[in-house]
């Protein structure tokens, strides 16, 4: 037995949520579907495979002030940033929700990142199961699935003229407590990803192939932009800089990427990862070896954004497959 809600009721529920919360939902912006704050349910895009950019920026913004320092009459005052309002992120896909779980491991491990923790605390995730997989999707290979409810507070899945509703956490339960749901025997059809990858030996294979020429061959093609890191729901590297003016100093945190040449440059100019190959290799070692060693999960949830948006088709699925075969060269279809 499942609980369902009609499309009309869902709309009025979301409308109600908006009264005292920010509602962040997939919406059309210049022909791209992205997560953004919406002022009305009409703005929400329900018909999308996945958003162009991941929802991570609502927890880990592209740019955010961490605090402001004021100095007046010899007194220095540090003013933290307040996040007052509760938020709801509606329409998050299971792969992106799984990405949030991975970000939690990094940002909430003690000492927790205050800004991230507060945003996370004050936000409820409403998941939306995929009704169709995109060609780049491979979440089922990375431990999630198009209908996985494990990483959200409330899970919705489209059935007929409505959605099945499942409250997963206490937070989710609180939000739907006043909602009238009907009983139904319907359940959402199962969605399959276009490809299944063998991933179980990846970490083991990575351990033996650090010096392999394979990385240089893939890096030949790589143009070393930051697209893969910036569209990834799990990449979390950042840069911090202070911006002083005559009245105050702001400390700013911004996204950064291991693919940019300046990323590892130390004072004095030394760069531990000077070559393109070493930077490209870092990306995949971090995702497929270092992160699992430290946190137990691959740092990839199979959303496929990097696959689809890479200007030169550096495809993590291909790399996962290649690296488990001994002696494979880049680009060989073995």
């Amino acid at each position, binding site marked *: 037995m499942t609980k369902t809600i009609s499309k009309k009721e869902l709309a009025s529920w979301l409308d109600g949520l908006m009264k005292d919360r920010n509602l962040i939902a997939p919406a059309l*912006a*210049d*022909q*791209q579907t992205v997560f953004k704050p919406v002022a009305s349910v009409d703005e929400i895009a329900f018909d999308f495979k996945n958003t*162009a*950019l991941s929802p991570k920026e609502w927890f880990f913004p*592209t*740019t955010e002030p961490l605090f402001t320092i004021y100095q007046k009459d010899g007194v220095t005052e540090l003013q933290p940033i307040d996040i007052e309002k509760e938020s709801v992120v509606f329409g998050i896909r299971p792969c992106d929700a799984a990405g949030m779980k991975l970000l939690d491991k990094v940002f909430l491990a003690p000492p927790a990142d205050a800004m991230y923790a507060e945003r996370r605390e004050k936000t409820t995730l409403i998941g939306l199961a995929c009704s169709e997989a*995109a*060609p*780049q999707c491979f979440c089922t290979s990375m431990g999630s699935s198009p209908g996985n409810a494990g990483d959200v507070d409330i899970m919705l899945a489209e059935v007929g003229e409505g959605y099945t509703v499942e409250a997963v956490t206490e937070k989710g339960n609180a939000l739907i407590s006043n909602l009238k749901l009907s009983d139904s025997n319907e359940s959402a059809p199962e969605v399959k990803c276009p490809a299944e990858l063998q991933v179980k030996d990846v970490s083991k294979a990575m351990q033996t192939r650090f010096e392999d020429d394979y990385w240089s*061959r893939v890096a*030949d*093609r790589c*143009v*070393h*932009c*930051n*697209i893969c*890191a*910036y*569209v990834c729901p799990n990449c979390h590297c950042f*840069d911090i*800089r202070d*911006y002083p003016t005559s009245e105050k100093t702001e400390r*700013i945190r*911004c*996204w950064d*990427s291991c693919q*940019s040449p*300046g990323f590892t440059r130390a004072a004095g100019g030394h760069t531990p990862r000077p070559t*393109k190959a070493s930077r490209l290799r870092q990306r995949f070692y971090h995702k497929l070896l270092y992160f699992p060693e430290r946190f137990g999960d691959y740092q990839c949830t199979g959303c496929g954004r990097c*696959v*689809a*948006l*890479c*200007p*030169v*088709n550096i*495809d993590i*699925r*291909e790399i996962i497959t290649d690296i488990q075969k001994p002696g494979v*060269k*880049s*680009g*060989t*279809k073995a």
Partner: protein
Amino acid sequence: MDENIINQIREKAKELLSSGTVECVIGYEAGTDGMTSRPAFIYEASDVERLVFDNTCTHNLATYLINKKTNKVAVVVKPCDARGINVLLSERQIEREKVYVIGIVCQGVVPVSWSGSGKDLQMRCKLCNQHAPVIYDFLIGEPAVEPVPTVSPWTSVAEMESKSSAEKTDYWNKQFSKCIRCYACRQVCMGCYCKECFVELLDPEWVGIKIDTSENSMWNMIRAFHLSGRCIGCGECARVCPVDIPLGLLNMKLAKEVAEHFEYRAGLSAEVRAPLATFNKEENLGIGE
């Protein structure tokens, strides 16, 4: 796919690699979506079967020459990319003796995104009046009489120019606010080869690290300016932009100004200097009148 072109590319690549003339052949191979192509680096004669050529070969491979300067390499180029090679040669960024140019008489490429490509040609291909490469060591295909495009290449630029200042500000702010500063536009550009880009300088810090409309505008404005008179219009920057900023519209504006003021088009010859690297004493360009 034109089997004839592909066979000629493969044969030539095989010959160049097995004779040791070049260390590597930079061409195209099939991508993982089974629909579009991607850049390929072939080091061994036994791998030449990977090489392909079709109307999804939109990448400008001249970009890669900057990182392959030590040994001689061969590169497969379309006519637009060939003009890129001329730009790099005229700016002394590559040596002619170290590049073997496999030029292809091109019938145009289609808009390409992973796992999907358009049927109709890209706009720049529809307006193209140069289907044969301007520089090559080996030519594939027969140059034909060039068509005369009936539409002005500056149509979209003129449309933007006709807007009011407020409309323009509004339009560009909306576009630049989307920028996530991934610098993919710079990285794929054959003209952006500076070891240290102005955007990454710390002292003075011309562009702050904040990813906001104001800093993003500064980045996009100067990126375009640095390419004025050098951009060959390959359209790579706009293609790779993950947030679909119409960067071509900026580059085209400067190309138009360069064409009108200096009667110059980038990359037609390796022997001439880019318009901003030279001058003409007699011109007055409307300054100080």
